[in-house]
């Protein structure tokens, strides 16, 4: 796969077409990292997604604070929101349309549109059946989702890279054993593993759940990394390093890994966006996070029947899942484009015109 890419670069570089000249001029004298960073920053959707993900994470974590640790030894940092998920304020029974209870007080429309002024109110997302503040619940759930995403991404990414690197670099019986083991796990649908794990570890909190899920989510990545290592280790620069007397560790970390990092990062982001959906699906089925703790999937499963009477209980957790997963997906897309040397930036008409003018001027000078 990698060879093919290179051939394309070569042919693109040797071609004297005007478009390639423009594209090549831009990356003159830049290191690989700089090129990738530039391309990523230029990817508008990915940048928007990156900022919205950071914004959501900051908002969510600061709102509900950070609560980790066991029940006996809690590690808690309080957030700025005045309710926590265990508070039981009085359920607001008046002022809602159609006789519903605990409706949201959030009003984003100014008074000249709907008659009431813009306000956040006491319970912006409303209240649940027993009066708990829904904003606090959703914030907590989103926080859990982000934690699951990061932990699964880290654990799965690390394990996948290690397994793939070892089997791709050493080949032989190590490769055979590791890949057979990967096959074992890959034939089990992930939701099955997740359900079995969630069923056993769901009540231990989201961190343990995510760690255990991470232990089973490295398979796809390890195959990719193995393939990448298999092709990279036959390349000339690796041979050169070996002739120069470099150790295995040096070859792996200095020469091969930096070249494989694109594949790794891209599939880790995809793994992460999948992880959010898996966690919420498991919680929805009752195999993930269990009450009294909350998760976005659990909230949806609890309130899906109240959709007709109190739709906000259903909309908010779903919107947060989508917002987080969508941002991660777009970031992954941006990274893929940035790391893929075949992806050329679209040359606009204006640039083509400029290049033509420059060429003509150069000719005139000569």
């Amino acid at each position, binding site marked *: 796969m990698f060879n093919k890419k290179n051939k*394309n670069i070569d042919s693109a570089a040797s071609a004297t077409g005007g478009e390639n000249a423009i594209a090549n001029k831009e990356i003159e004298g830049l290191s690989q990292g700089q090129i990738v960073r530039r391309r990523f920053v230029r990817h508008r*959707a990915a940048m928007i997604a990156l900022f919205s993900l950071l914004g959501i994470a900051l908002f969510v974590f600061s709102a509900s604070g950070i609560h980790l640790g066991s029940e006996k030894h809690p590690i808690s940092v309080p957030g700025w929101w005045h309710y926590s998920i265990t508070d039981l304020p009085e359920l607001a029974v008046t002022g809602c349309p159609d006789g519903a209870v605990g409706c949201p007080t959030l009003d984003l429309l100014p008074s000249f549109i709907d008659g009431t002024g813009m306000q956040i109110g006491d319970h912006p997302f409303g209240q649940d059946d027993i009066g708990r503040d829904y904003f606090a619940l959703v914030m907590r759930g989103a926080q859990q989702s982000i934690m699951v995403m990061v932990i699964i991404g880290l654990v799965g990414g690390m394990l996948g890279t290690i397994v793939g690197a070892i089997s791709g670099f050493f080949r032989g019986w190590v490769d055979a054993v590791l890949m*057979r*083991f990967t*096959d*074992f*796990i*890959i*034939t*089990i*649908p*992930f*939701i*099955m*593993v997740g*359900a*079995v*794990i969630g*069923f*056993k570890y769901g009540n231990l909190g989201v961190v343990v759940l995510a760690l255990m899920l991470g232990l089973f989510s490295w398979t796809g990545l390890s195959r990719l990394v193995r393939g990448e290592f298999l092709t990279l280790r036959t390349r000339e620069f690796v041979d050169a390093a070996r002739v120069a007397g470099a150790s295995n560790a040096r070859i792996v970390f200095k020469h091969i890994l930096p070249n494989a990092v694109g594949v790794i990062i891209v599939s880790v982001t995809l793994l992460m*966006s999948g992880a959010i*959906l898996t966690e*919420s*699906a498991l919680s*929805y*089925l*009752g*195999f993930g996070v269990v009450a009294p703790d909350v998760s976005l*999937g659990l909230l*949806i*499963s609890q309130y*899906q029947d109240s*959709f*007709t009477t109190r739709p906000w209980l*259903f909309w908010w*957790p*779903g919107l947060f*899942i*989508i917002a*987080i*997963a*969508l941002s*991660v*997906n*777009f970031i992954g*897309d941006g990274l893929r484009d940035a790391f893929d040397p*075949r992806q050329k930036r*679209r040359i606009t008409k204006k640039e083509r015109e400029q290049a033509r003018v420059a060429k003509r001027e150069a000719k005139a000078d000569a």
Partner: protein
Amino acid sequence: MLIVLFGSTFIIYNLGANMGDPLEALRISQDPNAKQQILNLTRELHLDVPSPIRYFYWLRGVLGVFTGHFDLGQTRDGLNVISQLGDAIPTSIRLVAVSTLLAIILGISIGIVTALRQYSRFDYAVTFYAFLCFSLPVFWFAVLLKQYLAIGFNNFLSDPQVSAPWVLGLSLISGVFWSAIIGGSRKRVWIIFGSAFAVTAAIIVLMGLTNWFTNPGLGIFLVSIFAGGAAVGVTQLSTGISNRKTLYSALSVAVFGAIAYFPLQWVFEQKHHLVNFILVALVFAAVGVGASFFFNKIDRGQAVRTSLITAVLVLLLLVVDKLMQTWNGYMSTDAVNYRPVPTVGQANDLLETGNFWNSTLDLLMHIALPTIALAIISFAVYVRYARGSLLEVLNQDYIRTARAKGLTERTVIMRHAFRNTMIPLTTIMVTDIVGIIGGAVITESIFGWIGMGSLFRGSLVALDLNMLMGISLVTAFMAMVANLIADLLYSALDPRIRAGK
């Protein structure tokens, strides 16, 4: 292969065995017999043996497949696991097959269009939509489907008048869609937008005025027009409209479909529906082949292919028309009572079983919502893969060669690029079908289907190890078979792989 199967079932067995304590309910029970029951259950399930060894008790039953005593044990309720699976597998396959087929056909065609219109507004819109689908939790989306598509549509049918904002909105969407797909200069885009807008609005208004929603049907007139359109379209895609002989053979199939319209109405009402249908299909195929042999003296292969595809489409049109005619009768049955889109279940038990077409329609209506929920997500996957794959192929040297030879753009895309695009896609298709069976757990539980997914969920809740293992065995086995098929297909489709070995 068998080693993989052994390994994965071993892992699942140990995971499942350590999931919880199957005796927990008995341990806390006040029943004086509890102790005795615990002993019985322990002996029955071999709970005194550690799980890695206990696995081999289970394996002995599975290996019985070679000696003719295949045994997957019994569920906790004393039912036979094999018979339970036998009931569930067809249900799951029915659900998954329809949605996957739909997703593949739509996904690949839209994906190819986006690749051809790379970086257009349409491309960006579809990309965004695909990412949205990737990020959509299926259980959340399913609730929305139930609310708006089922309940909303049922309410609409009680008074089927399309209001003006809806007409406007739908026409706008159609206009934007078609102008984005066809593209061209700015003037052309506006013309296409305008005509698509007007045509859609006219159709919707007409449908409302003629009570089409409560009493739909195509009639011989529309069937003939659509059949002709299908013939022209298929010919255009396969050989190009300028190949008159192929066009004539495809058109003759369409004409035959129109002629057969009234006789078929009678055939459809006869008993032995399946046999009749196969006979009709054979007649259509024979007409297609005959026509291509009659019109074409050389290069008959592509004419036969074109006519056969046209025949399938025309037959599909006729069946759809027949189902539409059944619609009103189906709605007015007591079991349906004018609310035709159900939110749960596999079939309506109250419906009388004598009428083949009513039952078919009933099955279709029940499969509709879960299929949409499943298809919408795999649709996004296919769009992305088809786009990426085609873009990669279009960059290859042989495409440039084909263009340089002066081949038409249609030949380049359909002959040279499309076929090679399908190579990586086949692998995804095969593994996807298996993946969905595992992933339909959520969809099945939301829509109240009793398939593999809900059996799996039930087995987890009841800590039913035998059932769990039965399901895992089936899915792991299917995953392996799928991998094998994918490998074989890959080497069959791609000569480079065979040559490489």
